[in-house]
């Protein structure tokens, strides 16, 4: 009789445990409905104008800040006591208790490449983690005017250059050099050029060179062809 009771109670206990697990036993990992999710994001310290609402992308040697949050059943988890590990291109980079933010530097290179950044919280539940790909891009400059099409007639035209992703906090630290049909053009404001095309010119080539005097790899040349409307 006692053996039967023991067996029966064991069976009932096992079923009860399984039922509790299915219904969401208060535990550390994601329970019913809401899965465990990782919010991983990053920010590059490269320059973008304040009106730009897109994401600033890192250029060569840009400083990047990454941060992680863990959401369990819709609530943000306090990771101050959790081990957090960071990996860059599959190699261990940094780790520590409560290390939810790190900084890293984009590689020194010419061209476009990317960084694989992975974060792991190994001791929480099933050890959630997430991987993101951070693109590393060359700096660029966008030349624009208030007119919808880039053309010029006999009146002076005004163009403005807006740099993106250079490693400067203030674009006034960059060097701008304008040339129109091979002739260097002087400007009072380095970001803009106001010029007049030759009277009989069918087209004119505008060249802009932008460089960061602090970093040899940060230099670009942008070319535009202007057509007068007559």
């Amino acid at each position, binding site marked *: 009789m006692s053996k039967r009771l023991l067996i029966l109670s064991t069976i009932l206990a096992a079923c009860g445990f399984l039922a509790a697990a299915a219904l969401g036993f208060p535990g550390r990992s994601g329970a019913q409905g809401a899965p465990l999710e990782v*919010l991983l994001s990053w920010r590059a310290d490269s320059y973008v104008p304040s009106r730009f*609402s897109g*994401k600033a992308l890192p250029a060569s040697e840009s400083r990047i800040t990454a*941060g992680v949050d863990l959401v369990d059943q819709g609530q943000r988890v306090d990771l101050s006591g959790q081990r957090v590990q960071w990996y860059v291109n599959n190699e261990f980079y940094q780790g520590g208790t409560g290390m939810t933010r790190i900084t890293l530097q984009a590689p020194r290179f010419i061209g476009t490449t990317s960084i694989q950044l992975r974060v792991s919280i190994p001791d929480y539940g099933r050890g959630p983690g997430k991987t993101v790909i951070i*693109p590393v891009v060359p700096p660029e400059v966008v030349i624009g005017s208030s007119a919808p099409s880039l053309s010029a007639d006999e009146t002076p035209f005004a163009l403005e250059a807006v740099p993106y992703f250079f490693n400067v906090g203030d674009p006034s630290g960059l060097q701008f050099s304008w040339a129109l049909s091979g002739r260097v053009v002087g400007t009072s404001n380095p970001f803009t050029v106001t010029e007049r095309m030759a009277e009989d010119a069918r087209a004119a080539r505008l060249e802009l060179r932008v460089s960061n005097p602090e970093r040899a790899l940060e230099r670009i040349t942008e070319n535009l062809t202007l057509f007068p409307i007559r």
Partner: protein
Amino acid sequence: MKKALIITGVLAVAVGIVATGIFLRGRGGAADTPDGAVTPPPGTLPVPIGGAGSEGADAGVVADPDGNSTPAEGPSATLLSRVSQAAVLDYAINPQDGLIVIDAGGAVISISGEENIIARANFGGISGAWFSADGKWLLVRSGTAESPRWSLLNVDERSWRDVPANTDEMVWSPTGGQLAYFARRIDGSALTTFDPEEGTTRSRLSLSAPDLSLRWITPADILIIDKPSSLAAGGVWKFSLGGDGLALLAKDVPGADVIWGDDEGLLFTAGPTGGRLSFLDIRGEAGRVANFLTLPSKCVFGKEELNEYLFCAIPQDASLLKDSQLPDDYLKGKFSTADALFAIDLVNGAFLPITAASRTFVFDAANMKVYGSDLYFTDRNTRKLYRASLAEATGTPAEGEELEDQ
């Protein structure tokens, strides 16, 4: 032995029942393809005759999925008029002053009837200005990106105050009564709300993740989105002010941007070039995919009696968006679009031209808002403000309205 087999069998059945329950409960929610993009169910919005925004699209004619044309119903094509001569940073309509704008020089002007300057933002270089939805408040950002200054105008009282907030972005609540922003902290940021009437702030959520943007979509819900780039995948999170916390609506979306209507949102997902628009509900369930391409910033959901419509400015040259990195290239100003305005019926998918394509009057529509039966927008090139009445059915600018040749 026999008893052991019986016990094992009973346990196996119990585990099987519970495992089946766990499996069935765990299904549902946003589906994920292996690459992390949300896969919508079959079904797209029909394409109008000639394609969206193409020349030759007949005003007021709708193509159904079978390609048959039928007369359009609902808001129909009508006249387009310029509302402001000056370049406008933002605009709103409030009960006291009617239509009010802030121009590029910082003058706050009531332009219902005679133009009347009601206030000035003398804070130096203005980098942004936003009216609350009810037009009772105007938020102005000046200063530098590292050290922005936020100033708030009580439009009715014509009085200014500073908003002490260390942030680079603030958004209004849908009803206009509060602001939300990420207050910078040493180790992250805090989602904070500010009540301009009371002058009080309240910290709602602390996050370590940087570079996040906000969309306040309902009085109780705020979307948290990674700043968009076609080269970076991010999430769309919903934070409920009522205590339900955070929910992931869309995962690993390149270039994500969202606008929201009464019941659903319009989500942009970037491709290597171009991208696609799809509808998203508050639970993160993916909906229809649109077979036209524009950016959410060029669309607005209708309100009240027009809440079954989505109004969009769609570039007439579809290849311009399809061949560009979005939204990056557009946000940088690498190109401008020449748009046509459409009303999309969200119930039957009908595509209704609001303005006919024109070769002489070109606009790159932005900052679209619906007030009553009027659609307002600014031209991104000139920043002038325009209005299209949705109640009339002309499809071309009215006689006597002289629109500039570009």
